[in-house]
C-alpha cells in the first residue's frame, strides 16, 4: 500500500488538475455563448444566399450551359473532401467524431474506385488523418492566429477550393463539420457544396419570375463562388460553437471525475492514517503488558 506521503501528494495533484479543468470549463462556457450567438446571427445570411440561388437556378433558361459550379463537371471521378476540425485538443469527441464520419466516407469512395483528395482545415484533423491518408492530403490550412471564426478566413478557404475546381482538379467537393445542436449534442455533417445540392428546398422557390440585371448566367457566375465561401463560413461558425460546447461538457466530466477521485483518495488516506495509529497503539499496549 502507498505510504501516507504518497497519498497526500496524489491528492494534491488531482486537486490541481481539477482546478485546471474547472477553469477550462468556465472559459469554454464563456466562449460558447459568444460562438453560439455568432452562429445564430450568421444563419440569415447563408439562408438568404441559398434562397436567392435556388430562385436563380430554377429560373435559369439554358440548363446545358449552366455554370459548372452549379451543375457539376458531369463527371464524378475525383472527390475533394474538406475536413474542418479544431486547432486545439481537450474537447471530448469533437474532432474524432468528424474524423470518424470523414473516414467512413473516404473508405466508401475508395472502395468505389474513385480518386480521393483531402484538404484539412484545423491542425487536429491533419494530425489524425495524416497517418492513414497522408498521401491523399493536398492542403492543410489552420487559423491558429485568428481568435474567432471570421469571414475573411472562410473566403480564403473558398478561394482555394474554387481555384482547384477551375483547374479541374476535382469533380465533387464535400465539407465535413460538426453541426451545433446543443451543448451535449453535436452532429457531424457531410455537406456537398460542389455541385450544389438543391434537393429538399423546392417549396421555397416561387413561380414568380424575377427580373435579372444583368442576366441570370452572369449573376450566377458571380454568386456561386460567394456561396461556397458562405457555406464554408457557416460550417466554421457551427464548428466553433460545437468545439466550445464539446469542450465544456468534456471539462465538466473531467472536473466531476477528479472530484470523485479526490474523495476516494481521501478515504484511503484517512484509513491508512487510522491503521498507522492503531498499529502504534497496539505496539505500546503490548509493550506495557509484557513488563
Amino acid at each position, binding site marked *: 500500500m502507498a505510504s501516507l506521503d504518497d497519498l497526500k501528494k496524489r491528492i494534491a495533484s488531482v486537486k490541481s488538475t481539477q482546478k485546471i479543468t474547472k477553469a477550462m470549463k468556465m472559459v469554454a462556457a464563456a466562449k460558447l455563448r459568444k460562438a453560439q450567438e455568432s452562429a445564430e446571427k450568421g444563419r440569415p445570411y447563408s439562408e438568404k444566399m441559398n434562397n436567392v440561388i435556388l430562385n436563380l437556378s430554377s429560373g435559369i433558361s439554358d440548363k446545358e450551359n449552366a455554370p459548372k459550379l452549379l451543375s457539376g463537371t458531369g463527371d464524378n471521378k475525383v472527390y475533394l473532401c474538406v475536413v474542418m476540425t479544431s486547432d486545439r485538443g481537450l474537447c471530448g469527441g469533437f474532432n474524432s467524431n468528424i474524423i470518424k464520419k470523414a473516414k467512413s466516407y473516404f473508405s466508401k469512395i475508395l472502395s468505389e474506385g474513385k480518386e480521393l483528395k483531402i484538404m484539412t482545415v484545423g491542425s487536429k484533423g491533419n494530425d489524425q488523418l495524416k497517418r492513414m491518408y497522408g498521401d491523399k492530403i493536398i492542403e492543410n490550412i489552420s487559423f491558429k492566429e485568428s481568435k474567432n471564426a471570421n469571414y475573411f478566413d472562410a473566403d480564403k478557404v473558398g478561394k482555394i477550393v474554387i481555384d482547384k475546381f477551375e483547374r479541374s482538379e476535382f469533380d465533387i467537393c464535400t465539407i465535413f463539420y460538426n453541426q451545433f445542436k446543443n451543448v451535449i449534442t453535436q452532429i457531424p455533417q457531410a455537406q456537398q457544396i460542389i455541385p450544389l445540392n438543391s434537393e429538399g428546398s423546392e417549396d421555397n422557390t416561387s413561380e414568380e419570375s424575377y427580373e435579372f*440585371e444583368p442576366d441570370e448566367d452572369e449573376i450566377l457566375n458571380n454568386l456561386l463562388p460567394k456561396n461556397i465561401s458562405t457555406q464554408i463560413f457557416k460550417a466554421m461558425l457551427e464548428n466553433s460553437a460545437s468545439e466550445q460546447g464539446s469542450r465544456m461538457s468534456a471539462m465538466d466530466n473531467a472536473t466531476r471525475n477528479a472530484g470523485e477521485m479526490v474523495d476516494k483518495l481521501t478515504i484511503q488516506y484517512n484509513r491508512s492514517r487510522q491503521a498507522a495509529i492503531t498499529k502504534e497503539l497496539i505496539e505500546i499496549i503490548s509493550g506495557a503488558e509484557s513488563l
Partner: protein
Amino acid sequence: MSEEFKIEIVNPEKSFLVKDDVSEVVVPAYEGEMGILKDHISIISFLKPGIIKILSKSGDESYYIEDGIVEFKNNNLSILTSSIFNIADMDKSKKQDLLKQAEEESGKEEISDQSRYLIDQKIEVLKTLN
C-alpha cells in the same frame, strides 16, 4: 395606402439592419444606380461599390458598400453583402485606409478587367466620400 416596405441588410456575421418603414432605397446596381419604391417588380441584381441611400420615416441613412446582392420580392428588399459601413460612423482615417487599400489593389498587374472596373469604381466612390 402606405407607401412603405421592408428592408433587410445581412452580412455574414449578423443581420446588419432591419427596417420596415422604408419609402425609397437607392442602390448602386451593377448597371447603374437603381431606385426602388414599393411594389417594384421582383428583381435580383448585384451591386458594385457605391452608396446605398435609405429614405424612411425615421430618418435617412446612407451606407458605403463594396459588393453584394440585392433581391426584391413581395415588398421585401434583402441586401446581402460582405462589406458595409455606415457613412455616419466612418471617420476620416477609415476612409483614407479604404482608399489606400483600393489604390494598392489597382496598382497590381495581374487583375482581370472586371475586377479592375470594380476597383476603379471603389476608388471613385471613396474619393467623393473623402
